[in-house]
């Protein structure tokens, strides 16, 4: 009991809120063609990549920032941001971990992601992204043996241009919406994974995003391609220091699954959510989209969203291949003054496609949470199926929970079922638990974990434990 209390006390505040004092190379403030050339230049990118960026920027200039979302935020001055910031020690690429700045190693150790050989997490290959660059990728030799490419995207652009050229922008084109296009123009780093035909990736691939520098926007780009008959499970984690200012994180994630391939993408998002009065925190405006390009392919999104001042993202599946499957499992928790507008899109284009959406939202304090989703079955998607379930739990009458699903069915052979409920934890449930000796907080923790179980089960083991704890911590102080 004492141990548990201690653990909770330890975690009560945002434990990843420290910042690392490190010398940085930054691009000048502002957004213009020179900055984009600067980024492209510092990454030693080929010409086609620069053209890709400039094309996106051309388009970006014509776009207007969207304002239909529920959580409103003060206008962002895009000229007052740094678009590139990297530890100085990364200027000359360190050949091995021994050459890596010890401060960086220390940072990741503190975050619970040790990069050194002896301390590595077993069975998880990690790509560590620090501000605008990837600082290290573990287990690369092991993966190379299987023909799997797992490296920072800036390296992939140089070493595997044919793959990047073929797939980058094929799911999220440069002509997409405001933030996605901004990302296409200025993205700095991220992960690239390619699983060759018929290979089942022997370990979890993972990227850990860390924002450190202040006044910086983080724009990473992740591209995962699963070739025919392959399988990969990918994890993503993120944290940032505690600061009074709001920081922008606008990432793009593209997944492509070819015939019979399966991609499982899990996120535990724990960006700094701001303090109790809603000051500071990350604006998490992310575009995630998966394309089930081949027959019998499958893409599954799992997300645990506990951090960020504002979360605004809709991981989506485009089910183009016949018999393809899309899944979306989500837990979103908002407390204090956090706001979230999240959900998914399932676009059925191929025959016999199936999708499933399980979304659990919990809001407490003064927070506001919205599930917004689209299920669209086109007239050609014969014999398709969708099942959607969105449940919301409210704690207190100062918070809000909203459900806005868009359901379109253009095919008479296809079925859509949608259910949503909103309620609070019933007094009977609480009474039952307390009667059996649990404190009010423990009882709420237990009930909430039960509420989220369906989604937590989808996470890989190592993450599930962490996520379960995170759910408890995020709701700390919201009972009573």
């Amino acid at each position: 009991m004492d141990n548990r209390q201690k653990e909770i006390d330890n975690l009560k505040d945002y434990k990843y809120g420290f910042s690392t004092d490190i010398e940085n190379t930054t691009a000048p403030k502002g957004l213009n063609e020179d900055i984009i050339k600067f980024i492209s230049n510092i990454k030693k990118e080929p010409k086609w990549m620069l053209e890709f960026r400039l094309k996106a920027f051309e388009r970006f200039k014509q776009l207007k920032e969207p304002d239909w979302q529920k959580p409103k935020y003060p206008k962002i001055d895009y000229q007052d941001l740094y678009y590139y910031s990297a530890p100085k020690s990364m200027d000359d690429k360190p050949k091995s971990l021994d050459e890596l700045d010890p401060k960086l190693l220390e940072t990741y150790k503190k975050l619970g992601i040790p990069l050194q050989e002896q301390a590595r997490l077993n069975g998880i290959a990690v790509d560590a992204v620090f501000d605008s660059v990837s600082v290290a990728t573990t287990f690369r030799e092991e993966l190379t043996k299987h023909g799997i490419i797992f490296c920072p995207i800036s390296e992939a652009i140089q070493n595997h241009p044919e793959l990047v050229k073929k797939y980058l922008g094929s799911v999220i084109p440069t002509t997409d919406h405001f933030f996605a296009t901004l990302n296409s123009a200025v993205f700095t780093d991220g992960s690239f994974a390619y699983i060759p035909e018929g290979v089942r990736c022997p370990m979890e691939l993972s990227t850990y995003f860390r924002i450190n520098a202040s006044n910086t926007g983080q724009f990473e780009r992740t591209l995962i391609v699963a070739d025919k008959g392959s399988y990969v499970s990918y994890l993503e984690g993120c944290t940032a220091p505690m600061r009074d200012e709001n920081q922008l994180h606008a990432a793009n994630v593209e997944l492509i699954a070819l015939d019979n391939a399966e991609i499982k993408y899990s996120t535990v998002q724990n960006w700094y959510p701001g303090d109790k009065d809603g000051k500071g925190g990350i604006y998490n405006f992310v575009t995630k989209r998966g394309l089930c390009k081949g027959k019998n392919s499958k893409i599954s999104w799992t997300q645990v969203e506990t951090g960020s001042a504002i979360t605004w993202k809709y991981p989506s599946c485009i089910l183009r291949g016949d018999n393809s499957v899309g899944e979306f499992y989500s837990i979103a928790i908002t407390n204090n003054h956090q706001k979230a507008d999240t959900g998914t899109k399932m676009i059925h284009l191929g025959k016999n496609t199936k999708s499933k959406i399980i979304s659990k939202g919990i809001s407490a304090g003064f927070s506001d949470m919205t599930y917004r989703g689209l299920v669209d079955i086109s007239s050609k998607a014969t014999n398709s199926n969708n099942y959607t379930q969105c449940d919301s739990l409210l704690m207190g009458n100062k918070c809000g929970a909203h459900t806005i699903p868009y359901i379109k069915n253009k095919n008479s052979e296809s079925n859509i079922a949608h259910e949503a409920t909103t309620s609070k934890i019933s007094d009977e449930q609480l009474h039952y638990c307390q009667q059996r000796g649990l404190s009010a907080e423990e009882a709420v923790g237990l009930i909430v974990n039960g509420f989220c179980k369906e989604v937590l089960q989808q996470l890989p083991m190592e993450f599930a434990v962490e996520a379960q704890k995170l759910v408890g911590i995020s709701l700390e102080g919201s009972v009573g």
Partner: protein
Amino acid sequence: MKEQLQKDFDNIVKNLSLSQKDIEIKKLYLDNFISRGFPNRKEEDWKFSDLNQIIKKNIGELSFYSDYTSTNKVDTSVFVDGLEHNKIVFINGRIEKIDFDYEEKNQIEIIDQSETTNRFNNNNSLLDLNTAFTNKSFKILVKQGYQLKKPLIIYHTTNSNIWSKNINLRLDFEIEKNSSLRLIDLFNDTSEKNFLNIFYNFNLKENAILKNYKVDKFENRNIKYSFNNIDQEKNSISETFILSSGSKFFKNEINCNLRGKYSSAFVNGIFSLNNNKHHEIRSIINHLTENTKSYQLVKSVLEGDSKAVYQGKIFVNSDAQKTDGYQLSKAILLNENSEFNAKPELEIYADDVKCSHGSASGSLNEDSIFYLMSRGLNYQQSRELLINGFLLDVVEKITDSEIKNLIKNMIGIKE
């Protein structure tokens, strides 16, 4: 369109004896409408039904002027048989008859509201259009403690004298404490290609009961929009039933404000569509205080290239604890080109509530058809039986047995 609007507006104003102030107010609404035009898909509320396109495609150029000086002959053959009722008859948008023969005269008051006011809180350019062009607006007041003996049927009749016209109607109802009103809106068109724009406002005082049944059954090529605002005080009950079937396009909006404790609202609807028709129901139930209740059920059967849209929203204010809100929409798609779109929305700011919604769409269950056919019915009969049962569910929600039977007969549902 702008010149046409200006010209028709000047014509209308000339024929009406309005005060200078009134004309100016109307002018303001006209200018609002001119600057905004008909709603289109860029507006969230019209995402699934682009009225601007629909009018362009089906009507083309509209004219907004109607000559209300001469009377139309009331064709008594359209009156409902076998049910004694009070009548209000609109022909081509002009009130021809108001008849409360069955009621005590001093219990019902009909007030001519020529003054232009805008009591609706609705960000909608069609309201601007309506306010600018309605020539006469009546308020029907049911006095305290009076329950109408017979239902009131409002006949919305149009005939072939009008073509490509926009008709704007407005009615106001106030139902005082402990009173009740049963109301049927019956649409009967022999005209084609007109746009009807109807606004109703209901004000329900304590313990008042309103039952409103909208029946759009007869085949016609008109475009219709009907907006209903219902304000409810303590203990009041409103029941709305919509049969959406006959017109080329019909959008019904129900905006219900549950302001008093223990008030409740019921919205039930049937879409029964074929050939290229496009209908929509949009409901917004605002739970503004505690212990209020709402229930909604919408079922659709879609044939041909038809399209049905259901947008339902349950809003719960932070004061509205103990709210009970429920919403269900189901659709059967019978043809490969039919389409069902839904946006069931929950917006909730109070924690001690029970709110849920469900939406399902798909084909007729083949297993059920097999079951019935194996018992000797042919395919057509089995199909009819299943659809009958599916829709009967909604008709059974009608609480008034007289009207329930009338509507059952109208749609030919057998028990």
